[in-house]
């Protein structure tokens, strides 16, 4: 492996790992804020205990998102210095805004929330968790604006003298249609993630007949959140796919293993492709499905990989403009499959727990616990698809990934840091999961414990 491959692996591993924690943080922050608001409104101690129980799990997860996020801020410079020089004028702006507007907000107000239970008036304390939640969501917006610019660069010009991208319209970057579609998709995905997590844990506790009232309320709320958010994911995903068809047709074609331009194209369910010769051996399709999804008409034309390759060679010169088709095809399919399954499970869960019912039998809680993993798989596959599907570009149409890597990077150094990050991340993952399990097993604190305000030991932390 050369520096380029190692750097790509490093970016992939550190970013996918970081994004295991981020969606849960985004979704749980709002759920916890919601529970605390319910307590504030009703005075019902169950909601307070829910706030503290889910709040603790939220904090365990949040810590991992924060520390792995530090690497994200610096690794563009470390491994991708040529990229940083080329795009810094445009790409740095949303990153700096994210820090100033979002990171400060979430970290400062989360500190106030954790330690402020007995120091702040109740209403102000409630505001701190909402401000932290707003911070996490804002952060998603800015980083997606930065990423969307790589998918579909807007609001810039190429300076012929320096050969660099220069920002000409910040508003265009922040309101890039790619961002406007990606943001709801990612945030709804985060709510599916948090919903499935809360539902899975709650159903498991219900199976043990612990804190039935509290975990029923948690489970029902979380299932509704998961279901509604799943619908949001699908709608925004549909919009995204149409934008992608227009902006990055190669990615869409690879996602569908569609080799030739086709009108009335079918949506592929299962295909075995022959990448070398640019065709499929087997392809089971839903007739008209792809044309309908991509263009909203039954006979809309969808471009195929071979044709786009030929067109790109004319536009960009000789080269291979195909992403890894098999990877794009399966990551896209499995993302949709796992996401849809999470939504279906939420619907089934709501039906099975209707009007005070709790299904007997171990299958119910086993499925609920397994269901926690579905959104994580869908999130991960979604990012693998959107980033790998853009290859060979790092900024679509203007910079190739091969040209983005740090020219001075040393194979040994990149290999060492790749090994170091992977090792530390693996150890931390084990610790994090064990800690989550410990507090899940322990269950919520009794009512008198959460009501007791002990100034020396903040109830939630340290």
């Amino acid at each position, binding site marked *: 492996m050369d520096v380029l491959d190692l750097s790509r692996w490093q970016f992939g591993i550190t970013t996918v790992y970081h994004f295991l924690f981020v969606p849960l943080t985004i979704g749980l922050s709002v759920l916890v804020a919601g529970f605390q608001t319910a307590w504030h409104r009703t005075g019902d101690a169950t909601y307070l205990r829910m706030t503290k129980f889910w709040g603790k799990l939220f904090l365990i997860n949040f810590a991992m998102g924060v520390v792995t996020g530090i690497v994200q801020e*610096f690794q563009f410079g470390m491994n991708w*210095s040529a990229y*940083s020089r080329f795009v810094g004028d445009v790409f740095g702006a949303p990153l700096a805004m*994210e820090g100033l507007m979002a990171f400060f907000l979430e970290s400062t107000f989360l500190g106030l929330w954790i330690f402020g239970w007995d120091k702040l008036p109740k209403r102000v304390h409630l505001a701190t968790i909402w401000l932290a939640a707003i911070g996490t969501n804002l952060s998603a917006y800015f980083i997606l604006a930065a990423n969307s610019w790589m998918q579909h660069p807007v609001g810039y010009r190429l300076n012929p003298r320096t050969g660099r991208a220069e920002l000409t319209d910040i508003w265009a970057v922040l309101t890039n249609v790619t961002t406007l579609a990606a943001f709801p998709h990612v945030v709804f995905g985060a709510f599916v993630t948090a919903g499935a997590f809360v539902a899975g844990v709650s159903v498991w506790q219900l199976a043990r007949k612990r804190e039935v009232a509290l975990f029923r309320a948690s489970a029902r709320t979380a299932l509704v959140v998961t279901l509604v958010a799943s619908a949001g994911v699908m709608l925004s995903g549909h919009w995204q796919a149409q934008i992608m068809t227009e902006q990055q047709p190669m990615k869409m074609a690879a996602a569908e293993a569609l080799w030739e331009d086709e009108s009335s194209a079918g949506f592929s369910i299962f295909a075995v492709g022959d990448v070398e010769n640019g065709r499929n051996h087997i392809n089971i399709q839903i007739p008209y499905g792809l044309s309908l999804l991509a263009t909203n008409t039954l006979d809309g034309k969808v471009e195929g990989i071979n044709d786009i390759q030929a067109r790109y060679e004319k536009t960009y010169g000789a080269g291979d403009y195909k992403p890894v088709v098999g990877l794009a095809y399966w990551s896209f399919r499995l993302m949709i499959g796992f996401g849809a399954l999470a939504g279906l499970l939420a619907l089934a869960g709501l039906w099975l727990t209707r009007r005070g019912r709790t299904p007997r039998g171990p299958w119910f809680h086993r499925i609920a616990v397994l269901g926690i993993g579905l959104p994580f798989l869908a999130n991960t596959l979604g990012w693998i698809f959107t980033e790998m599907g853009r290859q060979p570009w790092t900024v679509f149409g203007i910079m190739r990934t091969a040209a983005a890597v740090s*020219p001075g990077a040393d194979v040994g150094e990149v290999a060492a840091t790749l090994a170091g990050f992977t090792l530390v991340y693996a150890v931390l993952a084990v*610790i994090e999961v064990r800690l989550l399990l410990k507090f899940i097993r322990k269950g919520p604190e009794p009512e008198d414990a959460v009501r007791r305000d002990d100034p020396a030991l903040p109830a939630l932390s340290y």
Partner: protein
Amino acid sequence: MELTTVWFLLIAVLWTGYFVLEGFDFGVGILLPFLGRDEAERGTLVRTIGPVWDGNEVWLLVAGGATFAAFPEWYATLFSGFYLPLFLILLALIVRGVALEYRAKSDGTRGWDRAFFWGSLGPAFLWGVAFANIVRGVPLDADHEYTGTLLDLLNPYALLGGLATLALFTLHGAVFTALKTTGELRERARTAARWTGLATLALGGAFLLITQLMTGTTATWASVAAAAAGIGGALAATLRGRDGWAFAANAAAIVAVTVTLFGGLWPDVMPALDPANSLTVHNAASTPYTLGVMTWVAVIFTPVVLAYQAWTYWVFRRRLQVTR
């Protein structure tokens, strides 16, 4: 004032904020095994920074992001060039952050306290090494890519810089702990402040003097003097039991040190050994449009951030008791 100047100043301000704030977080971590004799005391020490450490660390992220936006060339050269030291800093900050959040949630705290100690000591030393190298100048080629090796970064001057920031941040942690605790813990912190204060005067004094003779201007003589006065003031105030003044004086010393470093840099941002290849505020900067946009963002949001962070410190202004 030119926008490139504004952004040079703003980035200096962000690093200053980072060093003043996370400086004492580092110091608390470094002093933890020495000041905290049992779990109750160590828990109290961690809680002195508990509500604020994460917000303090964001100053680093914003300094990084702002450098990327305002001086992309600086960002690219610095972080690709100082590759392994930065990797070590990142690992240390990761382990340290997790340790802070997980120690009291875990069954044992010993491993986490060790992680907190090393995760604080590492960056406290390495930031000094990094900044000394930035000020001293490093081998860059015509494309501003770093051409040296790791060993080039570990020169005696840079190592002295590392020891200087290590001592300075440890002192900062000591005066902070004295300010935030009571009883025996406070007494021990004040003793630590006296010893680290003397070490800081010696190491920091030597480092700043060499820096001043190497890159200084007439103006930075004033900041060197201010740094010395700040550390001396922190020592004097500690001896008189005026913890608040000691902390303020040492914070002023850290500001003065950062001013000296950035003052010595100007108008370069990363001087090269061959001056023709140096990165300056002009050739490293973004376009005036980007700088203009970011100036508006900074002008609007920096005061807001300062206000709510200051409020946080006000909320958690009380000294902590050790409860057993």
